[in-house]
């Protein structure tokens, strides 16, 4: 775990020396009602794309407007959508998610659970409680105690937020292992995406990745989960505005 801190710190330092712009291209520019809609609850709350994930072959979007996951290829071509089984909260199944093998694993921050879905048919395979008060004694600030992010590292699940992460002990369920350490982001920096080789961090409104720095693309509507993902050696950024969905990819 110390490695993470060192890598993060090293990346941050490198970025100061090698800061430069990164070209990106738009690979998805869809108006609403093509494959996604800008939904609203009858009471007026916004329902829309809530999280963006990628692996070497796919980009996955969790669409909270219709409780589904949409699949794109890495060039931005739409493939299909699968509906997800309900957890009893309308179209919500989680704030953020990761994809591991044939599972989408969501972090349901309302009920403090991880929801495991089968990516072939959208069925809910299992649900595990996670230790939502893990950071209770670590941080005085609430925003650092709330657990709202999930990452994968070497198939292991990391939970936390943009300031700290811990290794979720899946076999041990909600029990906290004494050997588990908390990984903290360097001061004044936030983890946007965790990957032990090339973490993506945010500092003063800029994104730092692989020793480079570029401006953060803003989304008009907030995503509940991650808006940045990595596919191969490319950085993927998802944004939503009044007109529709846009996905950018570094060249």
């Amino acid at each position, binding site marked *: 775990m110390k490695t993470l801190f060192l890598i993060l710190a090293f990346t941050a330092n490198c970025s100061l020396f090698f800061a430069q712009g990164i070209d990106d291209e738009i690979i998805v520019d869809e108006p609403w009602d093509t494959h996604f809609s800008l939904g609203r609850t009858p*009471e007026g709350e916004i329902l829309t794309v809530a999280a963006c994930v990628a692996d070497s072959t796919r980009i996955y979007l969790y669409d909270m407007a219709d409780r589904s996951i949409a699949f794109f290829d890495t060039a931005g071509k739409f493939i299909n959508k699968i509906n997800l089984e309900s957890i009893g909260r309308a*179209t919500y199944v989680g704030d953020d998610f990761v994809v591991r093998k044939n599972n989408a694993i969501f972090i349901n921050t309302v009920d403090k659970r991880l929801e495991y879905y089968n990516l072939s048919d959208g069925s809910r395979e299992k649900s595990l409680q996670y230790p939502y008060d893990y950071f209770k004694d670590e941080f005085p600030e609430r*925003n650092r105690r709330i657990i*709202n992010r999930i990452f994968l590292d070497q198939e292991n699940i990391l939970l936390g937020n943009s300031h700290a992460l811990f290794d979720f002990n899946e076999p041990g369920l909600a029990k906290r292992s004494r050997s588990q350490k908390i990984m903290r982001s360097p001061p004044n920096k936030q983890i946007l995406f965790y990957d032990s080789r090339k973490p993506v961090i945010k500092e003063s409104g800029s994104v730092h990745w692989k020793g480079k720095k570029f401006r953060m693309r803003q989304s008009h509507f907030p995503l*509940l989960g991650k808006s940045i993902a990595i596919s191969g050696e490319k950085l993927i950024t998802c944004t939503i505005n009044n007109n529709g969905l846009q996905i950018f990819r570094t060249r």
Partner: protein
Amino acid sequence: MFIIFLFLTSVSLYAFSIDSVITRSDSCVLVEWTPDSNNTSAAWYLNNGLQCTGTDSIYRKCDFSPGLTYHGVAYSYGGEDPWYIFRDKLEQGFPAGSHQCHYNSYGDPSDTIAGTDCSGFLSFAWNYPRSSTSMLYSDSNLQTVPFSHLQPGDALVMASSGCGYHAVLVIESESLSETVIAEASSSVFGCRERVVDLNQQYWNCYKALRYPGLTSIKKEKQQTDKIQLTSIKRSGNGKNYRISFSSPFSGSAGIYNAIGKSICRKDLESANSFTFSSTGSGTVSILKLVSKKGVTRSFVIPFL
């Protein structure tokens, strides 16, 4: 001494402050509940004259699952249940949440759905008269503040057909980009806490409102905690007393006997002392100082 201990402990619970607002909010967000089949009956909604406004069939029934454990008071349009009433209603077999099946008029006239909506949640947390989102948005008793001056206990409210209708409570406001809010959300069917970035354009629809009746008690608590009794003097026929403090105090001062019965009470304004007459008898009395913001300090006085 046990009675005195109880008394001294209980008086501090009456302080109402931003801290109390946060505690109330937490109680609604963290409550755990497990519905049974009565609480999740789909037929109930259709048999009780409710209109289901959602277009998707998933809205036309309660889809909380019996036997599963959930967190946070369920969402019910027009509802205003704090966590303890919510749980009482569940025990009585009422359905959990309105799930987009609403009465024709705003609210739950027969009060038979367990849950709260966003403005009901905020009204409860604030200990404020029940108001709808639109009422809060235009309430002249509330003070509009810039986002840059947000503090815990403030609300963010939007109410227009273009933006939508919603109200949330600010829990922590250390930075705009990581503001912690609590809300009763119709998009997740319940009360929750989350971190939001108020710099995003979406939040331009919201107005930041402050309930002036709430203020932080920290400064006043520090001042009240410093107060010491400097003297207790008896005068007149022996039944008049004068009590002096080490520093000025504003609020109410009350004298109680050992079982908490009030002997007298006075309102003070920047006073260093106060006088009272006592005809009671006993060996122990209690002086209770309650500041204007509800901070309480008690002293045991063995003089009657």
